[in-house]
Every structure is written in C-alpha cells, then in structure tokens.
C-alpha cells in the first residue's frame, strides 16, 4: 500500500545525493545475488521515500554528509563507526531503510512485505506434543 507523504523542507541537493550514493555502495555493494545501492538509484527515489517517512532524519543526514567531506572511503566509514557510532547508525538506518524498501531488492530476497493472513482453523500446531507436556507433573513451587 502506498500513500502520499510530503518531503521535509530541507532535503539533499545533487552533490549530497552523489556523496550518499558513494557511501551507500560501501555499505551495500553489488554481489552475485544482490544489486548495489547505486544499482537501485538509492540516493534518489528510495532516499526520498525514507525522508517522507522520517523527516526527522533529513537534518542529521545532512550534517553527517558535511562532516564526512567530499571523498569517502572505507577507512572514513570505519573511523565514523568507531568514533561516532550514533551518527554512523543514523546513516546506516537511512541507507539500509531505503534499500530494503525497494521493490527489486525485496523481490530478490523473496520478501513481499508484511501480509494479512487468515488464521488456520485446524489447530495451533504441535497438539500431540502438548498433550505430552500436559501430562507432566506440576512444576511450580507450592507456597
């Protein structure tokens, strides 16, 4: 299900989006099975989806990107993870949040979102094992 939500007033310009894309590819690189962050254009549509849901993340994200500067390599990210774990976690949350909302990623993972299911009418499962448990002696401490 989708619904229309507004982007926060302060969002990312093209340079910041490019910077985020570089970082996101280090967090989520391409593998034989999965696309990289930039393969799904994470720093555009998927990022905006996160910021519509979590406008509170826009400002801290901008601050984190500014603090990292222009060229970010793995060592910079490791340093941030060690020295500013909360900032790294926020950055990670934005990137992973955007990635795992993407329809292609979800399809590849075999995950189709949280579905409404009907409860089985036949029983709750493991009924025979429960009968055995029911027949065990009381295990509470009398007092």
């Amino acid at each position, binding site marked *: 299900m989708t619904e229309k939500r507004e982007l926060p007033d302060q969002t990312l310009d093209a340079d910041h989006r490019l910077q985020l894309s570089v970082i996101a590819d280090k967090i989520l690189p391409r593998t034989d*099975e999965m696309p990289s962050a930039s393969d799904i254009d994470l720093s555009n549509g998927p990022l905006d989806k996160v910021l519509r849901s979590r406008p509170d993340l826009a400002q801290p994200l901008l601050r984190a990107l500014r603090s990292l500067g222009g060229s970010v390599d793995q060592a910079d990210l490791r340093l941030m993870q060690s020295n500013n774990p909360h900032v790294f976690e926020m950055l990670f949350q934005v990137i992973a949040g955007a990635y795992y909302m993407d329809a292609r990623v979800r399809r590849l993972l075999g995950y189709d979102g949280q579905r409404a299911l009907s409860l089985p009418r036949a029983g709750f499962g493991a009924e025979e094992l429960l009968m055995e*448990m029911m027949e065990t002696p009381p295990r509470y401490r009398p007092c």
Partner: protein
Amino acid sequence: MSDIRVDALIIGAGLSGAVVARRLAEEGVSVVCLEQGMKHEREEYRGRQDDWEIAAMGPWHASPNVRQSPADYPINDDDAAMKPLMFNGVGGSTILYGAHWMRFLPSDFRVRTLDGAADDWPISYNDLAPYYDRTDIDFGVSGIAGDPAYPAYPDYPMPPLPINTWGEKVAAGHSKLGWHWWPGSNAIASRHYDGRNPCVQRSTCGYGCNEGAKASVDLTHWPVAERAGAKLITGARVSQITHDSHGRATGAIYRDRSGVQHRVVANVVILAANAVGTPRLLLLSQSARYPDGLANGSGLVGKRLMMHPFTRVIGFFDEPMESWQGHWGQSLYSLEFAETRPDLDFIRGAKWNLGPSGGPLHAAMFSEGEHLNWGAGLHRQVSEWLGRTAIWGISCDDLPETENQVTLDDGLFDGDGNPAPRLKYALSENSKAMLRFNRAKAAESLQASGAYKTLSAEIMPEYGWHPLGTCRMGDDTNDSVVDQFCAAHDVENLFIVDGSVFVTGSSVNPAATIAAIALRAAENLLTTRREIRGSA
C-alpha cells in the same frame, strides 16, 4: 486557572488507569483521567505500509528518548544498564506492547520465604487469582489452560494463536530435551471478540495493531469507561498533586498543550503513570508538609527500580519459514528455567518467549557485537536471517536493590519545564549469572530444534520494557509506600495502581499482574470508600 470537580482523578490513561477508570465508572463514580499524550487511531500505525520498519525506529519507537514526541518527557538514562521503554498516549504502553499475557508464578510472591532474598509480597498468588480470571476475559486473551508451571486456572476465552513453523520446531526440540514449553498466551484475539478482529499475523504488534486484534486499553477499556461517564482529558501534563492542610490529596495541577494551567479537585487521586512517571510525580509534589515528596515517609518513593534484564538468542534454520509473519506476541514460551534451582549459582530464573524475527531492516540492524555489519557481510546477514530465524527473548527475574532508583534530574526538563526523571540502574551479580546461564541454555534449545547456528548479545540494554517497583506495597509503613490495596500509607486518599507497587519483578511479563492488581484495588476502593461515590 479553571477547576474541575470529580470523585476520582486518575493520572495516566494506560493499562492500570484504564482498568480502574472502567470499574469505577461502571459503578457510578465520577472519573476524570489526565493523560499527557493523545488518542491515536489505528490508521496511524504503519504496519500496512512499506515504511513500517523505518517508522518503528523513529516516531513509533518504544523509547520516549528516541520518539521525542511532544507527549513524551525525556528520561536521563545515562546511568541505567537497561533503558526504559513506554508510550505516552491513550492506551499507554499497551499501544506498543507485545501483549504477552501471563500470570506471575506463585513463588514470585514469596521470594524471601523461598529463596532468602528480597521480600515477600503482602499478597499471594491466590489473592490475585480471581482478578486474573476476570482480566483474562476483559482483555480477551488467546491461549490454552493446563500449563503444569501454574496451579489450575480457567480456560482462556479464545483458543491460542498458531505457534507457527518455528514454534513447532522448538516444541519438538524441547520435547527431545524434556524441557518445558507452552503455546503463548497473548492478549491478541484469535477470533472475533468483543468488537475486536482476529489477528492477521502481520507481526507488527509492536508498532500498533492496525487490525484492532491486540488488546490495547484504548479499545478494551476506555470506550466502556467513557460510555459509563468517565472523562478523558488528553494533552494534559500533570506537574503536581495537591494536598490540603491535613495532608489529604485534593487533586492535581496540569497544563494543556496550549500552555494553559488547570486544576482538578478530587476526593481520591489515583496514580497510574508507570514506575518511572509515578515516582517522578510524587517527588515533584514535595511541599512544606511533604519535603521529601508526597507519600514518601518511608523514603522508598523511586527506590528499588526493577527493569527485567533482557537479551535475545537467535536461531538460524536452513529452510524458509516466512518468520517475518506471525504475532509479536509470543508463539510459545518456556518456564523451564524460571524457578530457583539448587544446583545453580543464582536464585530465581528467566522466562523465555519465542517469536518471529522481523523484516529485512531488522535483520540488517542486528549486531552481535558493538558494531553494525556492512559490505558483503551485510548482504549475507540479511539473507541468512530473513524468514529463516526464530528468536528467544529472555526476560530475567529482577530482584530489588535500593540503589536502583528514579530521582529528579536537575538539568533536564520536559516541554513544560518540569524536571525529568533520572534513572540509576545496575545489574546485580545474580542477574548477570542468570543472563549468562539462560543465554547458553536458549542456544542449546535452538540447536536441539534444528538451528544450524545461534547468535546472541550479552544483554540488550535498549529493551527495558518493564520498569517496576518504585513505590512498593507492604504492610510495614516504614518499609513500603502503599498497602496491599494500593492505598498510600501516608496520604489516605492517594492510590498507586501501576507497576510501581511491585515488590519483586518476576521473570514473567507484568501486564496481566498490573491489570489484576489494579482491578483488585478498584474493587477495594468501591467496597471500602463508599463516601467517594456521587460526592463530586
């Protein structure tokens, strides 16, 4: 300042406040409840949306320090080894709780007698049993009676929810080991029940139930209470409980969301603001007559904070189980190691609850050590986790320590300028040994159930779901804050009906016991304080 006059003022519209409000209103007592949060509609919850996981890490997070909503007050938990979780709004923490609905064990009420530590409660399991029976019906619990870990109790009103594929594996594993397990009892409807819909196994219970299947008190109690005449005032943050020159409580002062101050005048004041909010309000209500805070003659207001040390053990299975679905909620539970065992180096024990394992973002955000995994390893982690894991949540019995406490912070304030609570909470050596032992045993359980590997963290400090014990009940006025019916020793028309009054913590989820104690207090109030009815 405008005044409202009423028989009974309740502060807090969560679980305990709702139970008392409903019962008093049904008997014709005029009730006003002040709630600092707002009422939420089911459509607001994000469970049906793609962004449910990222929303759960922000506006629907269970920590007020993460949410930072205008309804919340900040909590200084820098010195707390467990961080408190709660929700401020109509329904309180039942909006976000897992609805694990279990009675305390009989031994929980006799810890001093049986294990030589902590204290006995002034009431027994048998004193509470009739109230458990009633609240099981009021909350609409799904489950199956006959668990040998308990004395006999009546059938639940609904059959249990499915234990799911992972539950069947663990049931078989425990059968092999000869260990206890039982289908989860949950305050989640498995059938249409009293206006609620059956659970759809979407597994987003922890972020608000879109179906109205979970028993949150905004659905189960407040509509009944309001139809009976109870008045619920939202966006009302109480700053002080007032008293007269004889020391009797007279009501409370609150500020609405536009900053206007009001006063409610009442014959009885009932605190239902949880084990952090309640002592905070009592300490905020200090005066010349009560220089250490209201009802604090014993010096125990805020002391003996208990938080249920918690961790998780994750089992990874080869075959896909769609374990992102299910109820979150407990599929099944085990009390195998809940009671004291003479061969172990700690007393008391832990309750385990088995549940589903969340979506891909939850899988990505898990960290066994200090750091999140990233790069190719992150892809592996999510691929191994998603849909193929089952999780034991391990909740350890927490015995009271005077040093673990809630006080007022002198540098942190809520949006209305009231001092925030400051928590000090450290794990005892007993709790640490209990966590270590149960982590190892839970890994053994999952391996016996077919898991090819397990992961766990030493402790998960961010899961402080159950603040308890900061205004304990007891018979001795020097050693407790309220009596066994939740009446304050020092202020005869002041009552505390939330988890603050717990004497020990049990390992079991406290919601059912909070509800039973609140209902018992309400019935006693109706029986013994007839003067309150109709006097406003």
